[in-house]
């Protein structure tokens, strides 16, 4: 019904108002929401989380991975993150280092402890799966305004909460997505759900962020992030068992590709 009304409205307004100005207004609102989302999540400085990654195939079989994720907030440049795997045992000690940049492709390295070798990951691999999960490398990188073009779609409700529906189109040609549709709650500007569309424009994956908890009286983090591939039926759940922000205890020295080999 709402959609229908919009169409009728659009048709009527379309005669009087140029399309460009309508589009412009939506883009401005989209950008405003994105900027507010970013602004409300600034200043956490660092975080360290113990996480369980549960991989699930289409038959419902599960496989678990234990990982620690350390993140450093780098304002005006893009965040740095370091992920260390504790299980399964044969990949224990494998580390993934990522430097997000606002307007250029991220730098990413993988450390393979058995070979004592640090390998650079090619830029386009960002659309590839992160450690066999339904999360792509690019899904693991930080949210930055310049990585997308935004468009406000509508206001809606999602699981009883009022949300802004914002469409964001990746600016990087090597992104695996044609667009993402994000449902952001109007109270706290937290993303509650993201729909990822593949390069052909079909819905590929849905990310649902559950059980948000407040840390340091300011920063919201979801306890569970469930990424479901709607095309294959596979899913990955990331559960934060424990997280601490703004501790000042995350060792900045470890965010260096030359030091990955000593990360445990």
């Amino acid at each position, binding site marked *: 019904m709402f959609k229908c009304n919009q169409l009728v409205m659009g048709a009527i307004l379309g005669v009087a108002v140029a399309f460009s100005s309508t589009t412009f207004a939506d883009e401005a609102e989209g950008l405003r929401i994105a900027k507010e989302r970013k602004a409300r999540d600034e200043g956490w400085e660092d975080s360290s989380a113990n996480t369980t990654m549960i991989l699930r195939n289409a038959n419902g079989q599960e496989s678990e991975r234990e990982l620690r994720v350390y993140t450093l907030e780098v304002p005006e440049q893009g965040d740095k993150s370091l992920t260390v795997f504790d299980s399964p*045992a044969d990949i224990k000690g494998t580390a993934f280092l990522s430097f997000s940049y606002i307007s250029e492709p991220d730098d990413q390295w993988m450390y393979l402890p058995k070979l*004592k070798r640090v390998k*650079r990951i*090619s830029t386009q691999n960002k659309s590839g799966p992160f450690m066999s999960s339904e999360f792509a490398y690019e899904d693991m990188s930080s949210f930055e305004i310049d990585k997308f073009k935004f468009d406000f779609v509508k206001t809606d409700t999602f699981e009883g909460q009022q949300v802004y529906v914002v469409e964001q189109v990746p600016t990087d040609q090597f992104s695996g997505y044609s667009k993402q549709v994000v449902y952001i709650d109007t109270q706290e500007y937290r993303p509650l759900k993201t729909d990822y569309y593949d390069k052909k424009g079909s819905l590929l994956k849905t990310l649902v962020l559950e059980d948000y908890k407040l840390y340091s009286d300011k920063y919201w983090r979801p306890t569970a992030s*469930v990424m479901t591939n709607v095309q294959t039926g596979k899913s990955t759940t990331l*559960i934060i068992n424990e997280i601490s922000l703004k501790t000042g205890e995350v*060792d900045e020295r470890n965010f260096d590709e*030359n030091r990955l080999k000593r990360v445990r």
Partner: protein
Amino acid sequence: MGRSALKPSLLAVSIALQGGINEARAEFSGSVSVEQRYFLQDAIYTAQPRAQSSVALSPEWFTEWSDGDNTLVFKPFYRFDQEDSERTHYDIRELIWTHLGQSYEFRAGVGKVFWGQTESLHLVDIINQTDLVDAIDFEAKLGQPMVSFSYYFDAGTLSAFVLPYFRERTFSGVQGRLRPMVPISNDVAFYESDDEQSHVDYALRWQQSIGDWEIGLSYFTGTNREPLLINTGSIEAGDLELFPYYELIDQYGIDLLWVNDSWLYKFEGIHRESETVSFFAGVAGLEYTWVGALGSNYDLGWLIEYQYDERDSNFFVPSQNDLMLGVRWVWNDFDSTEILFGFIQDLDNTNSYNAYLEASTRMTENWKWTMNGYFFATEDIENPYYFIRRDDHVEFNVEFFF
């Protein structure tokens, strides 16, 4: 999915890690593996087996203190081989203390260091000796006694190494395959330096990531890890013996990697000088990864590398003018299944080539199997593969991680 769904052991891990990255901790881990080698053809030399079983044990103790500024790793290694007494061997892969300062790192003990970027050949990598009897692919390394200091600054990382003791390369014994007509001696080695194994070697390395580039420059002066072979006696008299001879060398190395879109461009080059030889060797190549090949969940990585060496071939230097083609097939499944196939063609001699296949997958949380195949072909008596031309083999390995 709530926290209650987590297993108790996982909760224990999270409790142990509550303090985050800076808390002191101690860990014990490692693996036990059973390996079965099967050779596809009868041996050339008498006493060599058709099949070979072995068991390897690789535990690891790790502890850190003073908020992670100091760490100690102890990683011994032992392999028992049913056929080849020379392959039954032990080693200290690592026993090293690391102290981390704000902008430096100091290490002392027995350690392992890897340098380089290419896949088919590791020319620049020189700190550790190859444990050749353990793995024919040159990837197994012996622990190297060292003291090293690394300084981290804006222009990269500068590392200096003092290597006070030399490790001799390991070779197959009489009952082993993958050797020349007589085994290379594991007991007697000759050295250019009168100090022999006690000659102190030094190395320097600078390493830096600049945008899409990874750059490494290195210098090494000391005992060559790659021996020359000298022989006494003769085949006719039946008293032929082969001994390794370790020269003193100076080696300059460069390794580069450039990321461009979906391509990785790689290069390694060395210039080595010794009393007998002065030469350049290089390997250059590229890797393209096709993520989600043909709309599937698989990644297909294509590798091409060209190997060049100014030297004439010897037992350890088969690649003068060779081309490697490889495919890495990554399944992106629960069990991290991966298959790598490589084919190396000698461009000077169409009959000389070798190939390898490496496949691995996880069976359960703690068990993993690996299958490796190595194939050698040459009709050229000058080619080092001539000695092992009938040593094509498949090895199946089951490993338990604890």
